[in-house]
């Protein structure tokens, strides 16, 4: 049974050096939980995005929490480039594992199935592949005429960290059609969830919600965090706060500006 706790206590349970997977900006990003991790002073994270990141990654990098980053891209969307990410890579202060979207999905799917690796098309001849010592190329053992194919080792994150609109008192979490969250949770050892609200009715007992529900067996901890995606949006609840995101990109163009921003918006709410 999932532990019901507070946001800052949930952050206390994330160990230094943990491999954490976070969702992309269109999919329930737990920004309030990321702020709590920064307050807790977490260090040397291996941060994985499934498959691309935005402000959550930029915040953790700017706050010095990240040792290794794996993603297919880090972008602030229409607001531009991610300032703390770009500087960290340009100055070599984080180790960057450049990937491509389906490679991350596939490596998580391998972990979901409990198999050690999975193949993926594409990639041959790219510098993405050339810079990944952890990936291998083999000849299709079933059909020699099929040519070379890339093998990706499974990625099993220590923690999947997600936000959701709703959980029930039994620890089930409703994610709707955002199924990448399901893959992340299946693949990870445990999943920590922040939610807008907790309801009494069991989500699995209603067919309309059951198919979009992450069952309690995957969930380690749940904390309430109203507007937990801010300044990003949560589909069906609230839109992204575009002005706040633009303001962040501008202020975080310098480390000093970033720290000022964090002092104001990173405090407990």
């Amino acid at each position: 049974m999932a532990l019901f706790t507070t946001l800052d206590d949930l952050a206390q349970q994330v160990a230094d050096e943990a491999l954490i997977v976070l969702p992309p900006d269109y999919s329930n990003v737990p920004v309030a939980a990321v702020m709590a991790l920064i307050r807790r002073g977490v260090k040397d994270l291996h941060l994985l995005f499934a498959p691309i990141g935005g402000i959550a990654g930029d915040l953790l990098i700017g706050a010095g929490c990240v040792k290794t980053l794996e993603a297919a891209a880090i972008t602030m969307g229409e607001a531009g480039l991610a300032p703390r990410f770009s500087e960290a890579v340009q100055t070599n202060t984080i180790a960057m594992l450049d990937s491509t979207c389906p490679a991350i999905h596939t490596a998580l799917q391998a972990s979901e199935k409990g198999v050690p690796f999975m193949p993926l098309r594409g990639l041959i001849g790219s510098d993405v592949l050339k810079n990944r010592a952890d990936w291998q190329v083999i000849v299709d053992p079933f059909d020699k005429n099929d040519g070379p194919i890339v093998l990706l080792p499974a990625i099993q994150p220590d923690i999947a960290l997600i936000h959701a609109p709703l959980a029930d008192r039994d620890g089930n979490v409703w994610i709707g059609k955002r199924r990448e969250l399901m893959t992340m949770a299946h693949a990870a050892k445990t999943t920590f969830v922040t939610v807008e609200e907790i309801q009494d009715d069991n989500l699995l007992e209603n067919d309309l919600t059951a198919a979009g529900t992450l069952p309690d067996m995957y969930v380690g901890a749940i904390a309430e965090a109203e507007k937990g995606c801010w300044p990003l949006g949560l589909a069906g609840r609230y839109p992204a706060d575009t002005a706040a995101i633009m303001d962040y990109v501008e202020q975080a163009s310098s480390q000093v500006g970033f720290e000022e921003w964090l002092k104001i918006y990173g405090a407990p709410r």
Partner: protein
Amino acid sequence: MNYNQDEFLICTIASLLETSRHVAVGMASPFPGSAALLVREETKNQIDGLRLSMIGGDANNPFTDGGRELFDCSGQGRIDTFFLGGVQIDGQANINLVGTGDYPKTDRRFPGSFGSAYMYFVVPKVILFRPEHTRRVFVPEVDFISAPGTSEDGVYRPGGPHALVTELCLMMFNRERKRFQLTSVHPGHTVEEIQDNTGFDFDIPETVPETLGPTDQRLRLLRTQISPEIAKTYPEFVARVFETTV
């Protein structure tokens, strides 16, 4: 009817989609999204009309199995047209979305390769869209290959580059010759101007026509029916492009 450059580019992309059956549009792609919506509307009464799947937001996004579904669909061959860009693009249609300088310590870091290292291989018709036509973008050789334009024999590759649309011209990519060929020059520009601003060699036929501008009918459709539809995914883009023309 008068039109602005953005409308012209949307319609130029649309002219490349007329035989497409299932177009997918990736993140942060308002021009391709507008073009695909336009052709979908124009072909909506045809049994083989254009199907569109956009992942930039919830509107026109049919996927229900998470971020992987677009890639799984593409790997199966269900999607025939996709769009990519590039911080740098070279004459072999290699694209770089990662950054300039010596990787990994880049001089200027950009977001990353996204799904390009896969989609470029599996989607038959990939249209490269990069408005800025300068030697900074169109280089002799990219600094980082996010996705190669061509592959050696024996590599599974049903997909690859089809065309390149810029603010100056339209080029088609010849996979046999592994080179771009200039197809048409946008009104007000010249072949010389394109050569001056392109850092790689490309084929130039003896006569190069001017790119056709949009028909009045297409422009009207774009402004009246497509702009509110694309606004569901890209509100700021619509405010910028159509404010001067409606």
